[in-house]
């Protein structure tokens, strides 16, 4: 009874107005709710309540079998990401969820709290949870086993006051120092002067208290799911034709697309592994031009790639693996993108590129771009990702549409050239460059016309005086 009175006093000291709502199914009534029940008869108007910027839900698992296994964390975090995008792991055994944005969807904080609690049931038998405006406060409350829901940051001090200091999980040295001072509860610590606490324990302890009481921001590292799609399929009989593989691939791709959709993610790389009886498996890797989760597009690219494939042996089973999951752009999530298909060229061009590449090979499809360089053969490049905005100024000297891969020897001297009936129509344009890298050229370029009307781009090598064909004006 004495402790209760003390608690009441602390609550009075730190909590000014509003109420701490106990959850309906709370097993034991926390002592601090005594203050609540006294004031609870006249709840303040909702407009008077300061709105917290964040609301953190903390859950502490006490009997998970293999908590250190990363797979377990993956499963729990995925489970939690149904409620909020911001999930944070607190080692060794707690999870923190920022749930402010989801409250409206679930109606009330209490309903949301209960819904999240229910989500742990398949995974853990003993889970203690609490909700508070700061992550540390929620964590401390959950560790203390107080299933409460504090929404108002002003009530934090009162809510935390009754907690034993052990639930801060500070190091043993600090806790022993505090015990020797006769301080066992958070409320008693809060009443001590800050400078003294900082000196006797550490500035870190004061910072923790400030973070817990929302006097200082407490950033948390968010959990990022690092996972891939992986599903295998075994055939009852050995498959020898690609056509059947394509058919069998459909459900796998369907699953993969659903998997991606649930995570609001897409892939850019897919791998299909075909298992054979005696020889090593065949790996089919396809790259996509953009990040996608569209099953039709995935199917299309894989099908095109498979038509090109020659099976080395009969296939016993296959496995579809996705590459790293990547966040989808807002365009790909657009529900009406299909309806506007005809108007959106930007979306269709990457699809065309990946279709062509899937069948013809990655190097057979490319873009071209000029390079600011005097030597004609060095003044252009192949571009693997066409359409990425290459803007280079080019000169205004005549250049042919077609460039020969290597200059073709036409004649040893000017006399031989005139025998061939070539008329030099325009020129010369002298190009001397490249002495610094060993590929130097000394050439006089001309636009020439052959007797039949074709226009050629020829040059005379100034050292050997011989004539070469280098391009065709078409």
């Amino acid at each position, binding site marked *: 009874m004495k402790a209760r009175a003390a608690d009441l006093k602390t609550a009075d000291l730190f909590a000014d107005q509003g109420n701490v709502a106990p959850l309906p199914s709370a097993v034991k009534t926390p002592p601090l709710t005594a203050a609540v029940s006294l004031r609870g008869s006249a709840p303040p108007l909702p407009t008077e309540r300061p709105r917290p910027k964040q609301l953190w839900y903390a859950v502490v698992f006490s009997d998970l079998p293999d908590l250190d296994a990363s797979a377990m964390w993956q499963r729990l975090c995925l489970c939690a990401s149904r409620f909020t995008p911001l999930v944070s792991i607190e080692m060794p055994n707690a999870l923190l969820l920022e749930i402010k944005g989801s409250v409206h969807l679930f109606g009330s904080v209490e309903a949301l709290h209960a819904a999240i609690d229910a989500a742990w049931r398949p995974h853990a038998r003993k889970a203690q949870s609490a909700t508070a405006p700061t992550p540390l406060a929620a964590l401390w409350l959950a560790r203390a086993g107080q299933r409460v829901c504090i929404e108002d940051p002003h009530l934090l001090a009162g809510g935390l006051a009754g907690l034993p200091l052990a639930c801060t999980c500070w190091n043993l040295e600090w806790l022993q120092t505090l015990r020797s001072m006769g301080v066992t509860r958070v409320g008693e610590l809060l009443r001590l002067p800050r400078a003294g606490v900082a000196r006797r324990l550490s500035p870190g302890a004061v910072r923790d208290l400030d973070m817990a009481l929302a006097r200082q921001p407490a950033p948390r590292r968010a959990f990022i799911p690092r996972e891939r799609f992986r599903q295998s399929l075994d055939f009852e009989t050995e498959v020898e034709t690609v056509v059947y593989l394509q058919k069998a691939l459909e459900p796998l791709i369907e699953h993969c697309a659903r998997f991606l959709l649930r995570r609001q993610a897409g892939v850019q790389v897919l791998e299909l592994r075909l298992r054979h009886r005696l020889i090593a498996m065949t790996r089919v890797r396809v790259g996509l031009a953009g990040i996608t989760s569209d099953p039709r597009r995935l199917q299309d690219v894989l099908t095109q790639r498979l038509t090109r494939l020659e099976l080395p042996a009969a296939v016993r089973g296959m496995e579809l693996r996705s590459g790293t999951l990547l966040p989808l752009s807002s365009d790909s999530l657009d529900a009406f993108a299909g309806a506007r*298909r*005809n*108007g*959106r*060229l*930007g979306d*269709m*061009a990457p*699809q*065309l*590129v990946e*279709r*062509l590449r899937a*069948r*013809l*090979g990655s*190097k*057979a*499809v*490319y*873009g*071209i*771009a*000029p*390079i600011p360089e005097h030597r*004609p053969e060095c*003044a*252009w*490049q*192949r571009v693997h990702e*066409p*359409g*990425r*905005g*290459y803007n*280079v100024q*080019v*000169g*205004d000297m005549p*250049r*042919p*549409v*077609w*460039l*020969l*891969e290597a200059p073709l020897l036409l004649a040893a001297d000017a006399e031989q050239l005139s025998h061939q*009936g070539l*008329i030099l129509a325009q020129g010369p344009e002298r190009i001397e460059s490249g002495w610094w890298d060993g590929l130097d050229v000394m050439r006089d370029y001309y636009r020439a*016309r*052959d*007797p*039949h*009307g*074709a*226009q*050629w781009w020829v040059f005379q090598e100034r050292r050997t005086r011989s004539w070469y064909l280098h*391009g*065709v*004006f*078409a």
Partner: protein
Amino acid sequence: MWMPRETPSLAEILADARVWKLKDASATPSRPVWSTGLRALDARLPGGGWPTASLVEVLLETTGLGEIQLFLPALLACQQGADGEIPWMVWIAPPYEPYAPALVQQGIDLNRLLVVRPASATEALWAAEQALNSGACAAVMLWLQGSDERWLRRLKLAAEAGGALCVLFRPDRHRFESSPASVRLLLGRGERAHAAGEPTLELVKVQGGRPGPVEFSDSR
């Protein structure tokens, strides 16, 4: 009992989709046309230019006779896409490397040009059909050695459905084979005796127009 069929009226016959009206086609083409840059050639083509959603075949005696120049105005026009989106153009199996500085000089936006190098003629035709069907391309240029009329028919259908211009370049030995192209053009070497040394231009087939040689020299 045998019933005499009613003779259909002229209007009914004309309404039949299988009946193709020659005169109407030449008078009002349903789609815009793109100029060829040659006045004499424009005058001979229905509507005054290359038809947009169809197959144009150019039979070449040799490369370098100005065949790209004939399509340059069309290529520039097709990149003036509506509502800010620039359509793509695809060059499939060109005889040499398309030289980027020259194309930039001519005003072509290289960010919207795709070069495809397929391993075989079938793959080239497949790639052309994919490009036409994708809806992202306004022009597809295809250089081909062989001939397969069934494939060419597919290309024509794809071009018509996609609303794109498909230009097929083939050697002139295919001149006497039948082709579904709406325009067939023969670019030949000029005679050695000819003083100007200009290439010759002949319309082998024009749907809605009159075939025959076109005067090259005085029309630029």
